[in-house]
C-alpha cells in the first residue's frame, strides 16, 4: 500500500457504509413505530405497550443498577428460532413494539436464569414472592439467583406487633427470635417492575397463537 490518502479514504468508506447500514437505516425503519391501538374480542380498545406505573419505573432502575441483565434475558424467540415458547416463557415471540417504553433496553445476552419477558404473567394473580428477592434459596433450592438482603431491613419486632409486610421465612432463612425482615421501598419497587413484565397482547405483527399452532411470522 503506497498511498496514505487512498488507504484513509478506503477506511472511511468502509466505516461509513456499516454506519449507514447498521445505525442510520434501522433508525429510519424503526422510528415510525408507535403504540398500538387495538380492539379486543369484547369490543374494547386497548393501547400497547402501556406506560408502566411510577413504582415499576423506579423498580426498573433497581433492576438496571444491580445488573440483573447479566443472567436474565427479556426476549422470547419465535417458534422456529428456539424453544422459548415451548418452555412457557411467552405465548408469542417478542417484537420491537414490546420495548417502546424501555430505555435502556435490557434484552440481555445470557440465560443463566429464566427469561423474564413475561414473568408477571407467570405470577398470575399471586402476590409477588418477596422472599425470592431476599434470598432465592428460601424459595427455590440451590438457586444461583442473586440474593438481595440489602433491599430488606432486619429489625426488632415493634411493640405494636409484627409488621404486616414482614416476610414469611422458614428454617435457616428466618430472622432471629424477636426479629422480622421487612422490604424497603426499593424491594417493593423492584417487585412491582417484575410483576409488570407481560407481553401477551395481540399485535398485528405478532398474533397470539389460536387453536392451531400457527404462531410463526
Amino acid at each position, binding site marked *: 500500500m503506497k498511498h496514505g490518502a487512498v488507504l484513509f479514504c478506503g477506511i472511511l468508506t468502509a466505516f461509513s457504509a456499516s*454506519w449507514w447500514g447498521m445505525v442510520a437505516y434501522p433508525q429510519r425503519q424503526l422510528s415510525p413505530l408507535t403504540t398500538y391501538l387495538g380492539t379486543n374480542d369484547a369490543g374494547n380498545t386497548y393501547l400497547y405497550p402501556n406506560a408502566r406505573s411510577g413504582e415499576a419505573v423506579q423498580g426498573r432502575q433497581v433492576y438496571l443498577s444491580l445488573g440483573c*441483565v447479566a443472567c436474565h434475558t427479556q426476549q422470547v424467540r419465535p417458534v422456529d428460532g428456539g424453544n422459548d415458547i415451548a418452555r412457557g416463557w411467552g405465548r408469542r415471540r417478542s417484537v420491537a413494539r414490546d420495548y417502546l417504553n424501555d430505555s435502556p*433496553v435490557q434484552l440481555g445476552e445470557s440465560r443463566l436464569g429464566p427469561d423474564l419477558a413475561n414473568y408477571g404473567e407467570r405470577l398470575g394473580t399471586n402476590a409477588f414472592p418477596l422472599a425470592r428477592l431476599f434470598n432465592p434459596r428460601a424459595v427455590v433450592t440451590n438457586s444461583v439467583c442473586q440474593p438481595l438482603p440489602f433491599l430488606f431491613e432486619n429489625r426488632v419486632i415493634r411493640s405494636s406487633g409484627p409488621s404486616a409486610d414482614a416476610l414469611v421465612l422458614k428454617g435457616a432463612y428466618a430472622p432471629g427470635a424477636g426479629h422480622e425482615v421487612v422490604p424497603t421501598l426499593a424491594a417493593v419497587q423492584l417487585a412491582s417492575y417484575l410483576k409488570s413484565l407481560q407481553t401477551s397482547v395481540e399485535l398485528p405483527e405478532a398474533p397470539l397463537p389460536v387453536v392451531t399452532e400457527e404462531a410463526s411470522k
Partner: protein
Amino acid sequence: MSSGTTASVRGEPYEVRSGGPVLFLLASGLLWLLVGLTLTLLTGIKLQFPAFGSEFAFLSYGRLQSAAGCALVYGFAAQVGLGLSLWLLARLGGRALPGGGLAGIAAASWNVALSIGIPGIVAGQGTGLRWLELPRESVPLLFLSYLVLAILGARLLFQRSTSRISTGQAYILVALFWFPWIFSTAQVALVFLPVRGVLQAIIAGWYAQALFLGWLSSLALGVLYVLLPELSGRVSPYSRHAGFGFWSWLVLTGWTSGSALVGGPVPAWIPTLAVASGVLLLIPTVLISLSLHSGSRLRALFSSPALFLATVSGISFTVWGVLTALTSFRCAREVLQFTQFFVGLNQLGLFGFVAFAFFAGIYVAVPRLLGVKWKYPILSVLHVAGSVAGVGLAVASLLLGGWLQGWALHDGVDSVTVVRHLQPWLCLNFLGILLFLGSQFALLLQLLAAVVYFLLPLGQPVVAWVLAPTSTSGTKSS
C-alpha cells in the same frame, strides 16, 4: 536483533525518545489487566456461592461482570494496544512521538477517567448497556484522551520517513479511527440522546461487534503483522494475500453484529445480513491466517517467548474467526444463543488472540525502549506457560460447558439443573483465569527487574559520590 550487550538491544533514538508515554501505557494497561481478571474471578465465585458477599450491593454479579469487562477492554487492551501502536508507528515511520508531554498527559487522563468510571459501575451507576457501562461522567475525558493519542499516532504515520505503508501500519490506522467513530456513535445514540426501543439493542450490538472484531482485532493484527516476520526471520509464502485479507476484513466486520440478535425482536433482515456476512468472514479469516503464518520450526518457537506468544495468538485468531463465522448460522444460534459458549469465545478473542499478541509486543518493545535485556528467562517461561495453559483451560471449559448448557436449555431442562451441570465447567474456567492472573505476576516481576536495571546507571554517580565524594567528576561519563 542479535543478543549482546546492553547497548545493542536499545532501539533507534526515535523509538527511545517515544518511550515514556509508551511504557506508561503498557504498565498501566497491565495493572488494569490484574484488576479485570480479579473482578472476573469474583464473578466466578458468585456463580458457585451466590451468598458470597451478598450483603453488599457492590458485589452484585452483574456489576462485577460489567466492571471486569470494562477494565479488561478499556483498561488493559486499549492501553497496551495504543502503547504498542504508538511504538510501532514511531519505529516503522522513523519518527519520535510528537507533541511533547501531550501523549503522557492523555495517557494519564485516560487512567483518571477509568478510575472514576469503573468504581462508578461497581457503585451502581453503570449505564446497563453491555461494553458501554462506564458512567456518562467519565466518557468525555476518556474520549478526549483517546483522540489526542490517536491524532498523535496518525501524525507519526503521515509524517513517516518511508514511502510504503506496511500491512501492520494499515491495521493500526484502522484501529486508531475505528474506536472514536463507534464510541461516539454509541455514546450519543445510547447514553446522551438515547434512541427508542430495540434500536438501542441494534446499535449496542453493532458497537460490541465493532469493538472486538474491528478495533481490538486491528490493534492485535497490527502487532502480529510487524512482529511475526521479524521474530521468525521468515516471510509467509502467502504474504501477498495480506492486502485482500485486510480489505475484506475491513468491509465485513461492521455487518456481522446482527448474529447476536438472531431470533430477537428486530427486523428480520438484520440477522439475515449477519449470517451472510458471518459466512463471508471466513474469507478474510483464512487469508489473514495464511499471510501471518510464519512456518517457524518448533525449536525456534520455544527459544523465544515473543515468537511463541505471537504464534499462539495467530492460531487463536484463526480459531476465533472460524468459530465466530460458524456460530452466525441460525441453527447454531438456536442452541448456543445466550449460553456461556459466547463468553468463552469472547475470552478466546480477548485473551488468546489480543492479549497474547500484546504480550509478544511487550517482550519486544520494552528491551528496545529501556535498552535493557530481559534478565530472568525463567520468569518469561513461567509467564508464557502459565498464560497459555490458563487461557486454554478457561476457554475450552466455557466452549464445552456452554455447548452442553445450550443443549440442556434446548431440551427444556429447568434452570436450576442447567446451572448445576454448568458449575463444574465454570469452576474449571475459574481455575484457568486464576492461573492466567497468577502468571501475570511473573511478567510484572520481570518488568520491575528491567526498570531497576534501567535505573541503575542513573544511580551510579550517586553511589560513587556517596562512596568517594571527591572523585565525582570522574564518573560523569557513565
